[in-house]
């Protein structure tokens, strides 16, 4: 008698459901905590035992972080301290992360064509580029601070944009190369027979086929640049202020501003989660430099 086997995927048992619930609580609770803290008034920030839900929810934390007028700050904190509105940080972050990302993707795209289609650079170039990403940023920044002071690039938009572009370009090169490698060379070869030049063949034949991949790569790199903290902290002193620097800036004021900080954190993270979820199919490929095609 032949044993009958089910060829479907195995179903979940009770224990597995229990494990899943515990896992979900562990991974979702910190997000929930950040969210409710952003709606808590000051007296609920550090109460013991902690409130699992804001008793008197307020949106003042959000208002005060964007428009810190005197009355608002007094309502939230009970006393007045001067702090800068976070609106500048949003604009600066958008400029620096946006332009840094575009530069990284354009430069990376060109280099990816060179490596993939013309065998220029090859493994040593790819290794060097990878090294840029693997080195701890703290190691890279030691001489960069000195170099930038010599050039007068400290605390400028172009200085930060160039640094961001250089250190995220490795992802662009590796990921976009993996997309180009998937397009058969023959397509370009036949276009060449019709009289297109090599560069025109890249941009008119291959580029349209990898549009989706480049879009995903752009969002992926934007996520990295929007989140970057160390370079922004050590290469700027107030002229350019990015969001991560702004979030930590409140650490040094009298006490901690849990509510407003959490509110700013939520606002800073929303675009990351939206874009990250949009490109979730490409996240594995992005994080592994194109090696794992999710």
């Amino acid at each position, binding site marked *: 008698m032949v044993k009958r086997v089910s060829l479907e995927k195995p179903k979940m048992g009770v224990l597995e459901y229990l494990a899943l619930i515990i896992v979900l609580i562990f991974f979702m609770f910190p997000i929930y905590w950040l969210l409710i803290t952003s709606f808590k008034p000051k007296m609920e920030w550090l109460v013991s035992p902690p409130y699992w839900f804001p008793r008197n929810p307020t949106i003042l934390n959000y208002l005060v972080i964007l428009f810190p007028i005197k009355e608002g700050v007094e309502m939230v904190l009970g006393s007045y301290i001067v702090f800068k509105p976070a609106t500048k940080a949003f604009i600066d972050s958008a400029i620096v992360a946006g332009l840094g990302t575009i530069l990284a993707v354009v430069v990376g795209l060109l280099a990816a064509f060179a490596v993939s289609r013309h065998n220029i650079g090859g493994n040593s170039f790819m290794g060097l580029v990878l090294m840029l990403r693997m080195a701890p940023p703290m190691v890279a920044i030691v001489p960069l601070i000195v170099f930038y002071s010599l050039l007068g690039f400290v605390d400028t938009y172009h200085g930060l944009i160039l640094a961001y572009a250089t250190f995220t370009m490795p992802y662009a090169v590796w990921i976009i190369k993996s997309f180009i490698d998937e397009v058969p060379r023959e397509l370009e070869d036949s276009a060449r027979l019709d009289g297109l030049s090599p560069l025109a063949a890249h941009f008119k034949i291959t580029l349209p086929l990898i549009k989706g991949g480049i879009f995903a790569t752009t969002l992926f790199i934007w996520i990295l640049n929007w989140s970057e903290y160390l370079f922004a902290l050590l290469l700027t002193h107030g002229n350019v202020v990015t969001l991560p620097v702004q979030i930590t800036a409140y650490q040094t004021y009298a006490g901690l501003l849990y509510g407003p900080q959490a509110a700013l954190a939520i606002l800073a993270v929303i675009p990351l989660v939206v874009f990250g*979820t949009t490109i979730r199919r490409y996240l594995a490929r992005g994080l592994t430099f194109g090696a794992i095609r999710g």
Partner: protein
Amino acid sequence: MKSFVKRLSDFLNSKRGIPLVLMGPAQFLIFFIAIIPFALEIYLSFTPWSPTMGSIFNSPINWGMNYVKLLTSDFRYLAALGRTALFTVIAVSIELLLGIGLAALIDKEFPGSGIVFVLLLIPMMFMPVVVGLDFYMMFQPTGPVNHVLSIISGHPVKIDWLTNEFTLFIALLITDIWHWTPFMFLITLCGLRAISPNMVDAAKTLGASEWQIFRKVKLPMIRNALLIAVAIRALESTKIYDELIMFAAGRTNYLYENISIWTYIVNCVQNQIGYASSGALIVLLIIAIITFKLILKLLTR
């Protein structure tokens, strides 16, 4: 005019033009932002330079003294290296095991698995500074972590997590596990989903149990993906900095000094730029060996 455009196009598409157009911008960026500073770092690493000594080009040269001191008598530096390595080994092992377990769980069929998948990816989209802030708040003495521990243990727990080295290490570990287990989970799941169902069906028909299929069929097939994930995570976890700054909350005593914090203190607080450069270059050398000998091979296989 037309002939100029034609000639330009011909030049750009020539044997000399193509590398210039395609590789030129990348080479320029790397040279300008990475190679020149790197050369500067090598020079500085052979000097005792700090900003009070004036122009960096007039600095006295002490040749390899920085390196000798770092590797033979600077126990603070060596401890920072050791801490970084220890944290990496512990964090990456736990994240790998949890990630594999999670992926095996989610790979099954159950209602809502799509939503659970998306939810589990969210932590790794968070910026490190926000993760640091979030866990800083939760690890406060009156925060939810102590409260949950109180409920479980039955008597009040009042651990001040972020004020001594050991509990700070545990807090950092939990933070990193929360932040990056989703990465291991995602890579493992991608690997599992790439396995042809025929292989699994064949094993099933031969009477293999679920555990045997996972251990003997699936795991060997995703080995390469796991190696890549582990290698990348291991190097990334040497970079941890943002969370520790948040945990210190404005204090200058960081309690848990890994290699990034060490470099920050020596470079930006003590202003010993030359000495910090030497310390940084040793790290860079270690990372370079790992990158070229291991990661490059894994990625291009």
